Protein backbone atom coordinates (compact mmCIF):
# COMPACT_ATOMS: atom_id res chain seq x y z
CA UNK A 1 0.00 0.00 0.00
CA UNK A 2 2.02 2.91 -1.20
CA UNK A 3 0.17 6.15 -1.64
CA UNK A 4 1.83 8.75 -3.81
CA UNK A 5 0.83 12.37 -3.38
CA UNK A 6 0.58 15.46 -5.56
CA UNK A 7 3.14 18.24 -4.93
CA UNK A 8 5.19 16.18 -2.48
CA UNK A 9 7.49 17.92 0.00
CA UNK A 10 9.80 14.94 -0.18
CA UNK A 11 10.09 12.57 -3.08
CA UNK A 12 12.23 9.45 -2.99
CA UNK A 13 12.61 7.78 -6.33
CA UNK A 14 13.73 4.15 -6.69
CA UNK A 15 16.30 4.50 -3.94
CA UNK A 16 18.69 1.61 -3.31
CA UNK A 17 21.46 1.87 -0.72
CA UNK A 18 24.09 -0.74 0.06
CA UNK A 19 26.89 -1.01 2.57
CA UNK A 20 29.73 -3.26 1.41
CA UNK A 21 27.77 -4.86 -1.41
CA UNK A 22 24.89 -5.86 0.85
CA UNK A 23 21.81 -3.74 0.22
CA UNK A 24 20.15 -2.16 3.24
CA UNK A 25 17.40 -0.43 1.27
CA UNK A 26 15.79 -1.84 -1.84
CA UNK A 27 13.95 0.23 -4.40
CA UNK A 28 12.25 2.63 -2.06
CA UNK A 29 9.85 4.83 -3.95
CA UNK A 30 7.59 7.20 -2.05
CA UNK A 31 6.35 10.74 -1.78
CA UNK A 32 5.27 12.65 1.31
CA UNK A 33 2.68 15.40 1.74
CA UNK A 34 3.49 18.67 3.51
CA UNK A 35 2.31 19.58 7.00
CA UNK A 36 2.02 16.03 8.30
CA UNK A 37 3.50 14.26 11.30
CA UNK A 38 5.09 11.22 9.69
CA UNK A 39 6.40 8.11 11.44
CA UNK A 40 8.92 5.67 9.98
CA UNK A 41 8.30 2.22 11.43
CA UNK A 42 10.20 -1.02 11.03
CA UNK A 43 12.21 -3.62 12.91
CA UNK A 44 15.88 -3.17 13.84
CA UNK A 45 18.09 -3.14 10.77
CA UNK A 46 15.19 -2.33 8.47
CA UNK A 47 17.02 0.69 7.07
CA UNK A 48 15.06 3.42 8.87
CA UNK A 49 18.10 5.53 9.79
CA UNK A 50 19.68 4.82 6.42
CA UNK A 51 16.58 6.21 4.70
CA UNK A 52 16.87 9.48 6.65
CA UNK A 53 20.62 9.65 6.12
CA UNK A 54 20.29 9.23 2.39
CA UNK A 55 17.70 12.00 2.30
CA UNK A 56 20.22 14.19 4.14
CA UNK A 57 23.03 13.26 1.77
CA UNK A 58 25.05 11.50 4.49
CA UNK A 59 24.81 8.16 2.70
CA UNK A 60 25.55 7.76 -0.98
CA UNK A 61 22.76 5.78 -2.72
CA UNK A 62 23.68 3.03 -5.21
CA UNK A 63 20.81 4.16 -7.38
CA UNK A 64 17.80 6.44 -7.31
CA UNK A 65 17.46 10.02 -6.18
CA UNK A 66 15.84 12.23 -3.59
CA UNK A 67 14.05 15.50 -4.26
CA UNK A 68 13.08 17.98 -1.56
CA UNK A 69 10.61 20.78 -2.29
CA UNK A 70 11.00 19.58 -5.89
CA UNK A 71 14.68 20.57 -5.81
CA UNK A 72 18.03 18.99 -5.00
CA UNK A 73 19.30 18.91 -1.44
CA UNK A 74 21.99 21.56 -1.94
CA UNK A 75 19.45 24.13 -3.12
CA UNK A 76 17.24 23.76 -0.05
CA UNK A 77 19.60 22.93 2.85
CA UNK A 78 18.35 25.92 4.83
CA UNK A 79 14.81 24.60 4.77
CA UNK A 80 15.66 21.17 6.17
CA UNK A 81 16.52 20.27 9.71
CA UNK A 82 18.09 17.10 11.02
CA UNK A 83 18.13 15.52 14.46
CA UNK A 84 20.76 12.76 14.52
CA UNK A 85 20.71 9.91 17.02
CA UNK A 86 21.77 11.10 20.44
CA UNK A 87 24.53 8.49 20.67
CA UNK A 88 26.19 9.79 17.49
CA UNK A 89 28.15 12.45 19.39
CA UNK A 90 30.41 12.52 22.44
CA UNK A 91 28.53 14.50 25.08
CA UNK A 92 31.79 15.15 26.93
CA UNK A 93 32.50 17.85 24.34
CA UNK A 94 33.24 21.12 26.13
CA UNK A 95 30.12 23.13 25.37
CA UNK A 96 27.09 24.49 27.14
CA UNK A 97 23.47 23.80 26.23
CA UNK A 98 23.24 27.24 24.63
CA UNK A 99 26.39 26.60 22.54
CA UNK A 100 24.89 23.47 21.05
CA UNK A 101 21.55 25.09 20.25
CA UNK A 102 23.37 28.03 18.63
CA UNK A 103 24.95 25.52 16.23
CA UNK A 104 21.51 25.27 14.64
CA UNK A 105 21.92 28.84 13.40
CA UNK A 106 25.34 28.24 11.78
CA UNK A 107 23.89 27.10 8.46
CA UNK A 108 22.12 30.38 7.81
CA UNK A 109 25.05 32.45 9.10
CA UNK A 110 27.43 31.11 6.48
CA UNK A 111 31.23 31.24 6.67
CA UNK A 112 33.03 33.75 8.92
CA UNK A 113 29.95 35.23 10.60
CA UNK A 114 29.50 34.48 14.26
CA UNK A 115 26.15 34.13 16.04
CA UNK A 116 25.06 37.44 17.62
CA UNK A 117 22.17 38.79 19.67
CA UNK A 118 19.51 37.74 17.18
CA UNK A 119 20.74 34.15 17.08
CA UNK A 120 21.01 34.02 20.85
CA UNK A 121 17.42 35.20 21.30
CA UNK A 122 16.29 32.57 18.83
CA UNK A 123 18.24 29.84 20.63
CA UNK A 124 16.77 30.83 24.01
CA UNK A 125 13.34 30.80 22.44
CA UNK A 126 13.89 27.27 21.13
CA UNK A 127 15.15 26.11 24.52
CA UNK A 128 11.99 27.46 26.08
CA UNK A 129 9.88 25.45 23.63
CA UNK A 130 11.54 22.21 24.75
CA UNK A 131 11.36 23.19 28.42
CA UNK A 132 15.11 23.55 28.92
CA UNK A 133 15.25 27.19 29.97
CA UNK A 134 16.64 26.24 33.39
CA UNK A 135 19.61 24.51 31.76
CA UNK A 136 20.84 27.19 29.35
CA UNK A 137 24.34 27.43 30.81
CA UNK A 138 24.63 23.80 31.90
CA UNK A 139 27.55 21.78 30.51
CA UNK A 140 26.22 19.20 28.09
CA UNK A 141 28.18 16.44 29.85
CA UNK A 142 25.95 16.92 32.88
CA UNK A 143 22.65 16.31 31.08
CA UNK A 144 20.47 13.22 31.29
CA UNK A 145 19.55 11.31 28.12
CA UNK A 146 16.14 12.95 27.86
CA UNK A 147 17.67 16.39 28.33
CA UNK A 148 20.28 15.67 25.65
CA UNK A 149 17.47 14.74 23.29
CA UNK A 150 15.64 17.97 24.03
CA UNK A 151 18.81 19.96 23.36
CA UNK A 152 19.12 18.27 19.96
CA UNK A 153 15.51 19.09 19.16
CA UNK A 154 16.03 22.71 20.25
CA UNK A 155 19.06 22.85 17.92
CA UNK A 156 16.88 21.59 15.07
CA UNK A 157 14.22 24.21 15.90
CA UNK A 158 16.90 26.90 15.75
CA UNK A 159 17.43 25.99 12.10
CA UNK A 160 13.93 27.42 11.43
CA UNK A 161 13.30 24.84 8.76
CA UNK A 162 10.15 23.63 7.00
CA UNK A 163 11.00 19.94 6.97
CA UNK A 164 12.33 18.14 10.05
CA UNK A 165 13.93 14.70 9.93
CA UNK A 166 14.47 13.10 13.33
CA UNK A 167 16.34 9.86 13.94
CA UNK A 168 14.91 8.07 17.01
CA UNK A 169 14.24 11.21 19.08
CA UNK A 170 12.35 9.08 21.62
CA UNK A 171 15.09 6.51 22.23
CA UNK A 172 15.96 6.24 25.91
CA UNK A 173 13.59 9.07 26.82
CA UNK A 174 11.20 8.86 29.77
CA UNK A 175 7.42 8.97 29.34
CA UNK A 176 7.04 12.60 30.38
CA UNK A 177 9.68 13.81 27.98
CA UNK A 178 8.21 11.68 25.21
CA UNK A 179 4.78 13.22 25.74
CA UNK A 180 6.25 16.74 25.90
CA UNK A 181 8.32 16.29 22.74
CA UNK A 182 5.39 14.76 20.93
CA UNK A 183 3.14 17.66 21.85
CA UNK A 184 5.75 20.01 20.45
CA UNK A 185 5.92 18.01 17.21
CA UNK A 186 2.13 18.22 16.91
CA UNK A 187 2.25 21.98 17.35
CA UNK A 188 4.92 22.18 14.66
CA UNK A 189 2.88 20.15 12.21
CA UNK A 190 -0.22 22.23 13.02
CA UNK A 191 1.89 25.28 12.09
CA UNK A 192 2.48 23.76 8.65
CA UNK A 193 5.87 22.14 9.25
CA UNK A 194 6.49 18.61 8.07
CA UNK A 195 8.02 16.33 10.67
CA UNK A 196 9.42 12.90 9.81
CA UNK A 197 10.35 10.74 12.79
CA UNK A 198 12.09 7.36 12.97
CA UNK A 199 10.27 5.50 15.71
CA UNK A 200 10.65 2.02 17.16
CA UNK A 201 7.58 1.68 19.36
CA UNK A 202 4.43 0.68 17.45
CA UNK A 203 2.19 1.25 20.47
CA UNK A 204 2.86 4.93 20.83
CA UNK A 205 3.31 5.40 17.10
CA UNK A 206 -0.31 4.56 16.46
CA UNK A 207 -1.32 7.41 18.74
CA UNK A 208 1.27 9.88 17.53
CA UNK A 209 1.54 10.00 13.79
CA UNK A 210 -0.93 10.72 11.02
CA UNK A 211 1.12 9.30 8.15
CA UNK A 212 3.19 6.14 8.23
CA UNK A 213 6.15 4.77 6.34
CA UNK A 214 6.67 1.06 7.02
CA UNK A 215 10.02 -0.30 6.11
CA UNK A 216 11.76 -3.64 6.12
CA UNK A 217 14.56 -3.32 3.56
CA UNK A 218 11.74 -2.91 1.05
CA UNK A 219 9.10 -0.26 1.44
CA UNK A 220 6.06 -2.06 2.83
CA UNK A 221 3.69 0.85 3.07
CA UNK A 222 3.45 4.61 2.91
CA UNK A 223 0.18 6.37 3.50
CA UNK A 224 -2.25 7.95 5.95
CA UNK A 225 -2.78 6.19 9.26
CA UNK A 226 -6.27 4.87 8.62
CA UNK A 227 -5.18 3.23 5.37
CA UNK A 228 -1.88 1.62 6.31
CA UNK A 229 -2.04 0.67 9.99
CA UNK A 230 -3.52 -2.77 9.41
CA UNK A 231 -2.57 -6.09 10.90
CA UNK A 232 -1.59 -7.40 7.49
CA UNK A 233 0.83 -4.58 6.73
CA UNK A 234 2.29 -4.63 10.24
CA UNK A 235 2.80 -8.39 9.89
CA UNK A 236 4.53 -7.80 6.58
CA UNK A 237 6.75 -5.13 8.16
CA UNK A 238 7.73 -6.99 11.28
CA UNK A 239 7.89 -10.44 9.72
CA UNK A 240 7.88 -13.42 12.02
CA UNK A 241 8.10 -11.59 15.30
CA UNK A 242 5.01 -13.32 16.66
CA UNK A 243 5.25 -12.04 20.16
CA UNK A 244 5.22 -8.50 18.94
CA UNK A 245 2.43 -9.17 16.49
CA UNK A 246 0.10 -10.69 19.01
CA UNK A 247 0.66 -7.56 21.05
CA UNK A 248 -0.23 -5.46 18.05
CA UNK A 249 -3.46 -7.32 17.46
CA UNK A 250 -4.25 -6.94 21.12
CA UNK A 251 -3.52 -3.26 20.90
CA UNK A 252 -5.78 -2.80 17.92
CA UNK A 253 -8.54 -4.73 19.70
CA UNK A 254 -8.16 -2.83 22.95
CA UNK A 255 -8.37 0.52 21.35
CA UNK A 256 -11.18 -0.69 19.14
CA UNK A 257 -9.07 0.71 16.44
CA UNK A 258 -10.48 -0.64 13.26
CA UNK A 259 -8.84 0.89 10.27
CA UNK A 260 -11.41 -0.63 7.94
CA UNK A 261 -14.12 1.47 9.52
CA UNK A 262 -11.91 4.57 9.57
Amino acid at each position, binding site marked *: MIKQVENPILEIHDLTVSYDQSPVLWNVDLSLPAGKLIGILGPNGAGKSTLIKSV*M*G*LVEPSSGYVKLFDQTL*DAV*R*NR*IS*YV*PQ*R*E*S*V*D*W*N*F*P*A*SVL*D*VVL*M*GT*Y*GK*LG*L*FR*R*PGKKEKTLALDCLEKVGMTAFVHR*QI*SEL*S*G*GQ*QQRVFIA*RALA*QEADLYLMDEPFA*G*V*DMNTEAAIFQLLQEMSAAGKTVVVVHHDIYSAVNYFDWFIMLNLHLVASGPKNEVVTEELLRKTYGGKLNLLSKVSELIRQKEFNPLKG
Partner: protein
Amino acid sequence: MMSFDQNAFLIIITASMIAISCGLLGVFMMLRKMSMTGDAISHAVLPGIVIGFLVSGTQRGLEVIIGAGILGILATLMIDWLRKKARVQLDASIGITFTLLFAIGIILISVFAYRVDLDQECVLYGEIAYLPIDLWISSSGQSFGPRIMWLAILNLLLVGGFIALFYKELKITSFDEKFGIVIGIPASAINLGLMSMVSYTTVSSFEAVGAILVVALLVVPPATAYLWTRDLRPLIQLTILTGVLVSVVGYYLAYLFDSSIAGMMVTVAGIIFFLSVIFTHKKFKFTLGTQKETQPFSS
Protein backbone atom coordinates in the same frame (compact mmCIF):
# COMPACT_ATOMS: atom_id res chain seq x y z
CA MET B 1 71.41 31.48 39.39
CA MET B 2 68.30 32.82 37.68
CA SER B 3 69.43 34.83 34.74
CA PHE B 4 67.17 36.97 32.65
CA ASP B 5 69.27 38.17 29.77
CA GLN B 6 68.25 38.88 26.22
CA ASN B 7 68.98 35.32 25.08
CA ALA B 8 66.78 33.82 27.76
CA PHE B 9 64.03 36.22 26.78
CA LEU B 10 64.26 35.33 23.08
CA ILE B 11 64.26 31.60 23.78
CA ILE B 12 61.30 31.79 26.18
CA ILE B 13 59.29 33.98 23.82
CA THR B 14 59.96 31.68 20.86
CA ALA B 15 59.23 28.52 22.85
CA SER B 16 56.01 30.07 24.14
CA MET B 17 54.86 30.97 20.65
CA ILE B 18 55.55 27.44 19.42
CA ALA B 19 53.74 25.99 22.45
CA ILE B 20 50.75 28.28 21.82
CA SER B 21 50.54 27.39 18.11
CA CYS B 22 50.71 23.68 18.91
CA GLY B 23 48.25 24.02 21.78
CA LEU B 24 45.65 25.89 19.72
CA LEU B 25 45.69 23.18 17.07
CA GLY B 26 45.99 20.46 19.71
CA VAL B 27 42.72 21.50 21.36
CA PHE B 28 40.78 20.76 18.20
CA MET B 29 42.80 17.61 17.45
CA MET B 30 41.94 16.34 20.93
CA LEU B 31 38.24 17.17 20.59
CA ARG B 32 38.19 15.30 17.28
CA LYS B 33 39.89 12.33 18.97
CA MET B 34 42.74 12.86 16.55
CA SER B 35 45.62 13.62 18.90
CA MET B 36 47.58 10.69 17.55
CA THR B 37 46.94 11.83 13.99
CA GLY B 38 48.96 14.88 14.99
CA ASP B 39 51.70 12.50 16.09
CA ALA B 40 51.49 10.71 12.76
CA ILE B 41 51.68 13.95 10.78
CA SER B 42 54.69 15.21 12.69
CA HIS B 43 56.65 12.11 11.68
CA ALA B 44 55.18 11.63 8.22
CA VAL B 45 56.39 15.04 7.02
CA LEU B 46 60.02 13.83 7.08
CA PRO B 47 60.20 12.60 3.46
CA GLY B 48 58.60 15.88 2.37
CA ILE B 49 61.31 17.82 4.18
CA VAL B 50 64.08 15.75 2.58
CA ILE B 51 62.60 16.10 -0.90
CA GLY B 52 62.09 19.82 -0.37
CA PHE B 53 65.67 20.02 0.79
CA LEU B 54 66.96 18.15 -2.26
CA VAL B 55 64.98 20.42 -4.56
CA SER B 56 65.94 23.71 -2.95
CA GLY B 57 69.37 22.78 -1.62
CA THR B 58 68.68 24.53 1.64
CA GLN B 59 66.97 23.70 4.88
CA ARG B 60 65.25 27.04 4.88
CA GLY B 61 63.56 27.04 1.50
CA LEU B 62 59.87 27.40 0.91
CA GLU B 63 60.10 24.04 -0.88
CA VAL B 64 60.76 22.34 2.43
CA ILE B 65 57.57 23.71 3.96
CA ILE B 66 55.55 22.88 0.85
CA GLY B 67 56.99 19.36 0.72
CA ALA B 68 56.18 18.81 4.38
CA GLY B 69 52.69 20.22 3.93
CA ILE B 70 51.96 17.87 1.04
CA LEU B 71 53.24 14.86 2.99
CA GLY B 72 51.20 15.86 6.04
CA ILE B 73 48.01 15.99 4.01
CA LEU B 74 48.97 12.76 2.24
CA ALA B 75 49.38 11.08 5.63
CA THR B 76 45.94 12.33 6.73
CA LEU B 77 44.32 11.07 3.54
CA MET B 78 46.12 7.73 3.82
CA ILE B 79 44.96 7.24 7.43
CA ASP B 80 41.42 8.14 6.42
CA TRP B 81 41.51 5.82 3.43
CA LEU B 82 42.87 2.88 5.39
CA ARG B 83 40.21 3.38 8.03
CA LYS B 84 37.20 3.91 5.81
CA LYS B 85 37.95 1.89 2.70
CA ALA B 86 40.28 -0.86 3.91
CA ARG B 87 38.48 -1.13 7.28
CA VAL B 88 41.64 -0.94 9.36
CA GLN B 89 41.28 0.23 12.96
CA LEU B 90 42.12 3.92 13.38
CA ASP B 91 45.10 3.36 15.69
CA ALA B 92 46.49 0.68 13.40
CA SER B 93 46.11 2.85 10.30
CA ILE B 94 47.92 5.68 12.10
CA GLY B 95 50.73 3.33 13.11
CA ILE B 96 51.12 1.94 9.61
CA THR B 97 51.03 5.31 7.87
CA PHE B 98 53.46 7.30 9.93
CA THR B 99 56.06 4.59 10.46
CA LEU B 100 56.08 3.89 6.72
CA LEU B 101 56.45 7.53 5.73
CA PHE B 102 58.98 8.24 8.46
CA ALA B 103 61.05 5.22 7.37
CA ILE B 104 61.01 6.48 3.78
CA GLY B 105 62.30 9.79 5.11
CA ILE B 106 65.13 8.09 7.01
CA ILE B 107 66.09 6.08 3.90
CA LEU B 108 66.09 9.24 1.79
CA ILE B 109 68.37 10.95 4.30
CA SER B 110 70.84 8.07 4.38
CA VAL B 111 70.83 7.53 0.61
CA PHE B 112 71.39 11.21 -0.14
CA ALA B 113 73.48 11.76 2.98
CA TYR B 114 76.37 13.20 1.01
CA ARG B 115 74.09 15.92 -0.31
CA VAL B 116 71.93 16.45 2.72
CA ASP B 117 73.08 18.53 5.63
CA LEU B 118 70.31 17.13 7.72
CA ASP B 119 70.55 14.48 10.36
CA GLN B 120 67.96 12.38 12.15
CA GLU B 121 69.06 13.75 15.51
CA CYS B 122 68.23 17.29 14.51
CA VAL B 123 64.85 16.31 13.08
CA LEU B 124 63.88 14.25 16.09
CA TYR B 125 65.10 16.42 18.93
CA GLY B 126 65.83 19.95 17.70
CA GLU B 127 67.79 22.45 19.74
CA ILE B 128 66.28 25.74 20.71
CA ALA B 129 69.39 26.79 22.63
CA TYR B 130 71.13 27.71 19.35
CA LEU B 131 68.36 30.16 18.56
CA PRO B 132 70.17 33.37 19.56
CA ILE B 133 73.15 32.66 17.28
CA ASP B 134 71.11 31.69 14.22
CA LEU B 135 70.21 35.15 12.98
CA TRP B 136 68.15 36.32 10.04
CA ILE B 137 70.51 38.53 8.12
CA SER B 138 69.30 40.43 5.08
CA SER B 139 71.31 40.67 1.88
CA SER B 140 72.50 44.13 2.89
CA GLY B 141 73.99 42.62 6.03
CA GLN B 142 71.44 43.92 8.47
CA SER B 143 70.40 41.59 11.28
CA PHE B 144 66.75 41.25 12.26
CA GLY B 145 67.22 38.89 15.19
CA PRO B 146 66.81 35.12 15.49
CA ARG B 147 65.46 33.43 12.37
CA ILE B 148 63.50 30.78 14.28
CA MET B 149 61.76 33.48 16.30
CA TRP B 150 60.44 35.01 13.09
CA LEU B 151 59.28 31.57 11.92
CA ALA B 152 57.44 31.13 15.22
CA ILE B 153 55.81 34.57 14.92
CA LEU B 154 54.60 33.84 11.38
CA ASN B 155 53.39 30.41 12.47
CA LEU B 156 51.46 31.80 15.42
CA LEU B 157 49.84 34.48 13.26
CA LEU B 158 48.71 31.92 10.68
CA VAL B 159 47.45 29.40 13.24
CA GLY B 160 45.74 32.11 15.29
CA GLY B 161 44.14 33.55 12.16
CA PHE B 162 42.95 30.14 11.01
CA ILE B 163 41.34 29.34 14.36
CA ALA B 164 39.78 32.81 14.69
CA LEU B 165 38.33 32.75 11.15
CA PHE B 166 36.97 29.20 11.30
CA TYR B 167 36.20 28.97 15.02
CA LYS B 168 32.52 28.26 14.47
CA GLU B 169 33.18 25.68 11.76
CA LEU B 170 35.91 23.95 13.77
CA LYS B 171 33.63 23.81 16.77
CA ILE B 172 30.67 22.27 15.00
CA THR B 173 32.65 19.75 12.96
CA SER B 174 34.49 18.66 16.11
CA PHE B 175 31.27 18.12 18.03
CA ASP B 176 28.91 16.75 15.39
CA GLU B 177 30.50 16.43 11.95
CA LYS B 178 27.41 14.92 10.28
CA PHE B 179 25.19 17.76 11.45
CA GLY B 180 27.81 20.17 10.14
CA ILE B 181 27.72 18.51 6.73
CA VAL B 182 23.92 18.57 6.70
CA ILE B 183 23.74 22.32 7.32
CA GLY B 184 26.27 22.92 4.56
CA ILE B 185 29.56 23.37 6.44
CA PRO B 186 32.46 22.25 4.20
CA ALA B 187 33.56 19.70 6.81
CA SER B 188 36.26 17.94 4.80
CA ALA B 189 37.82 21.24 3.72
CA ILE B 190 37.91 22.37 7.36
CA ASN B 191 39.47 19.07 8.33
CA LEU B 192 42.12 19.30 5.60
CA GLY B 193 42.79 22.90 6.62
CA LEU B 194 43.40 21.82 10.20
CA MET B 195 45.71 19.00 9.06
CA SER B 196 47.66 21.38 6.81
CA MET B 197 48.09 23.74 9.74
CA VAL B 198 49.39 20.87 11.88
CA SER B 199 51.84 19.84 9.14
CA TYR B 200 53.06 23.38 8.68
CA THR B 201 53.40 23.98 12.42
CA THR B 202 55.34 20.74 12.77
CA VAL B 203 57.87 21.74 10.13
CA SER B 204 58.10 25.28 11.35
CA SER B 205 58.82 24.09 14.88
CA PHE B 206 61.14 21.23 13.87
CA GLU B 207 64.43 23.02 14.27
CA ALA B 208 63.44 24.45 17.62
CA VAL B 209 61.85 21.56 19.44
CA GLY B 210 62.06 18.53 17.13
CA ALA B 211 59.40 16.12 15.90
CA ILE B 212 58.83 14.11 19.07
CA LEU B 213 58.49 17.17 21.24
CA VAL B 214 56.08 18.89 18.86
CA VAL B 215 53.75 15.98 19.52
CA ALA B 216 53.96 16.57 23.25
CA LEU B 217 53.06 20.23 22.77
CA LEU B 218 50.12 19.22 20.56
CA VAL B 219 48.77 16.72 23.06
CA VAL B 220 49.72 17.54 26.65
CA PRO B 221 48.62 21.19 27.19
CA PRO B 222 45.10 20.59 25.74
CA ALA B 223 44.73 17.38 27.75
CA THR B 224 45.82 19.23 30.89
CA ALA B 225 43.39 22.08 30.27
CA TYR B 226 40.57 19.62 29.65
CA LEU B 227 41.00 18.34 33.20
CA TRP B 228 40.11 21.77 34.54
CA THR B 229 37.29 22.99 32.34
CA ARG B 230 34.37 21.84 30.20
CA ASP B 231 33.97 25.00 28.19
CA LEU B 232 35.68 25.62 24.88
CA ARG B 233 36.86 29.20 25.41
CA PRO B 234 38.41 28.63 28.87
CA LEU B 235 39.82 25.38 27.48
CA ILE B 236 41.71 27.31 24.81
CA GLN B 237 42.83 29.98 27.29
CA LEU B 238 44.08 27.39 29.78
CA THR B 239 45.91 25.56 26.99
CA ILE B 240 47.72 28.78 26.07
CA LEU B 241 48.54 29.45 29.71
CA THR B 242 49.88 25.91 30.15
CA GLY B 243 52.00 26.29 27.01
CA VAL B 244 53.58 29.51 28.29
CA LEU B 245 54.11 28.09 31.77
CA VAL B 246 55.79 25.02 30.30
CA SER B 247 58.13 27.22 28.26
CA VAL B 248 59.17 29.47 31.14
CA VAL B 249 59.58 26.74 33.77
CA GLY B 250 61.13 24.37 31.22
CA TYR B 251 63.74 26.93 30.21
CA TYR B 252 64.84 27.73 33.73
CA LEU B 253 64.94 24.10 34.83
CA ALA B 254 67.03 23.26 31.75
CA TYR B 255 69.31 26.15 32.65
CA LEU B 256 69.54 24.89 36.22
CA PHE B 257 70.37 21.31 35.24
CA ASP B 258 72.29 22.33 32.12
CA SER B 259 70.16 20.02 29.95
CA SER B 260 68.01 20.11 26.78
CA ILE B 261 65.45 22.90 26.87
CA ALA B 262 62.90 21.10 24.70
CA GLY B 263 63.29 17.91 26.73
CA MET B 264 62.79 19.82 29.95
CA MET B 265 59.74 21.61 28.54
CA VAL B 266 58.04 18.32 27.82
CA THR B 267 59.00 16.93 31.21
CA VAL B 268 57.47 19.98 32.85
CA ALA B 269 54.34 19.56 30.71
CA GLY B 270 54.08 15.96 31.87
CA ILE B 271 54.50 16.94 35.51
CA ILE B 272 51.84 19.67 35.21
CA PHE B 273 49.52 17.14 33.60
CA PHE B 274 49.94 14.56 36.36
CA LEU B 275 49.56 17.19 39.08
CA SER B 276 46.33 18.26 37.37
CA VAL B 277 45.12 14.66 37.32
CA ILE B 278 45.72 14.41 41.05
CA PHE B 279 44.01 17.71 41.83
CA THR B 280 41.01 17.06 39.60
CA HIS B 281 40.78 13.27 39.72
CA LYS B 282 37.04 13.34 40.32
CA LYS B 283 36.58 15.02 36.98
CA PHE B 284 39.01 12.73 35.17
CA LYS B 285 36.74 11.12 32.62
CA PHE B 286 38.20 12.04 29.26
CA THR B 287 39.82 9.47 27.05
CA LEU B 288 43.22 10.32 25.73
CA GLY B 289 44.44 9.28 22.33
CA THR B 290 42.26 7.85 19.63
CA GLN B 291 40.27 5.32 21.58
CA LYS B 292 36.69 6.38 21.97
CA GLU B 293 35.40 5.20 25.28
CA THR B 294 31.74 4.38 25.27
CA GLN B 295 29.99 6.39 27.90
CA PRO B 296 27.00 4.93 29.65
CA PHE B 297 24.00 7.10 29.02
CA SER B 298 21.43 7.62 31.68
CA SER B 299 18.02 8.77 30.76
